[in-house]
């Protein structure tokens, strides 16, 4: 039985697409047949982050409208085996997604894949609702910042009331907190909400903490999921989060500020 995972947040720009690309790559690297779907109709970006933008011929909406077969729209990832991408349409708007159409596509994908990762658009409108509706598990991507935390809480409320599992009175969607763009130095100084603060407020289990890391931009510049930059801090943190998602014990890393040497203390440096 395929598992449907939604990567969502409410707020934009917190790292949903980065996370979708990293997590789906991570799952595929563990040998699971994985497909990642871009639900951001009209503003597709997953293709760019995953480096397959020039190979998009047909998209999700084409498949829903019967203009293309699913296998024509699926793009085989060039970095990772077992991984496919279903891009969003760039020319339609979010109303092009119909509940029946999405359900049909997911049903077919569920026969072929073990994990279906849904990259949600920002907001709480149709696209976001479609992305989370079928979810079995949800990755709540949150920045340690007031507006992001509030929006995440709002999304949790929607997951608990408007997802398929909620409507059918099934076991609720399993929620995971993924704290992204974390700066341990600033949190220690009291300038940034700490991991514990966010965990307390949202009251859901912590899947991982992804430190703020220039590698994320370097990776997306090249169309490479950051998890493939294995020596990078963000990449390793995503690899850890994937392991935890799969139920393996994996201690949290990067939660403490790197120790500064005497020279750095005197001459300053980025904090």
């Amino acid at each position, binding site marked *: 039985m395929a598992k449907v995972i939604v990567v969502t947040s409410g707020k934009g720009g917190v790292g949903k697409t980065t996370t979708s690309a990293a997590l789906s790559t991570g799952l595929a690297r563990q040998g699971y047949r994985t497909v990642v779907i871009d639900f951001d109709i009209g503003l597709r970006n997953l293709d760019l982050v995953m480096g397959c933008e020039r190979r998009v011929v047909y998209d999700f909406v084409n498949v829903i409208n019967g203009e293309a077969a699913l296998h024509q729209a699926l793009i085989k990832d060039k970095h990772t085996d077992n991984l496919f991408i279903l891009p969003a349409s760039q020319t339609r708007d979010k109303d092009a997604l119909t509940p029946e159409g999405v359900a049909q596509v997911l049903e077919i994908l569920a026969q072929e894949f073990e994990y279906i990762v849904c990259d949600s658009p920002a907001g709480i409108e149709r696209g976001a609702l479609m992305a989370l509706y079928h979810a079995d598990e949800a990755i709540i991507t949150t920045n340690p*910042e*007031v507006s992001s*935390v*509030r929006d995440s*809480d*709002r999304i949790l*409320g929607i997951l608990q*009331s408007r997802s398929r599992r909620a409507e059918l009175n099934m076991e609720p969607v399993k929620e995971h907190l993924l704290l992204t763009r974390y700066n341990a130095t600033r*949190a220690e100084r*009291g*300038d*940034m*909400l*700490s991991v514990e*603060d966010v965990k*307390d*407020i*949202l009251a859901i289990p912590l899947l991982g903490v992804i430190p703020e890391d220039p590698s994320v931009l370097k990776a997306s510049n090249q169309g490479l999921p950051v998890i493939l930059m294995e020596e990078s801090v963000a990449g390793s943190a995503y690899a850890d989060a994937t392991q935890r998602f799969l139920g393996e014990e994996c201690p949290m890393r990067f939660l403490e500020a790197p120790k*500064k040497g005497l020279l*750095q*203390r*005197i*001459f*300053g*440096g980025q*904090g």
Partner: protein
Amino acid sequence: MSILEIFRSREKKANSAAIARERLQIIVAHERNGQHTTPDYLPAMKQDILNVVRKYVQVEQDHVSITFENQQDVSILELNVTLPDND
């Protein structure tokens, strides 16, 4: 951190993260409670009900009160119209 800040950091600073945490705890608790108690359509429904009542009886806006309450299995919509005295 520059050399001056080593000394400065020993002073007590306003901790903005603590303020953020406190504000969030309050607003999130408030919004969680509000999620099911008042549906979005309540103000519009109140206006419609008021219009219907007014077709027959002249009542003031504040003489109609509508409350919506969620209990475990049921939601209760309570409508209270104060009719004017009959002269």
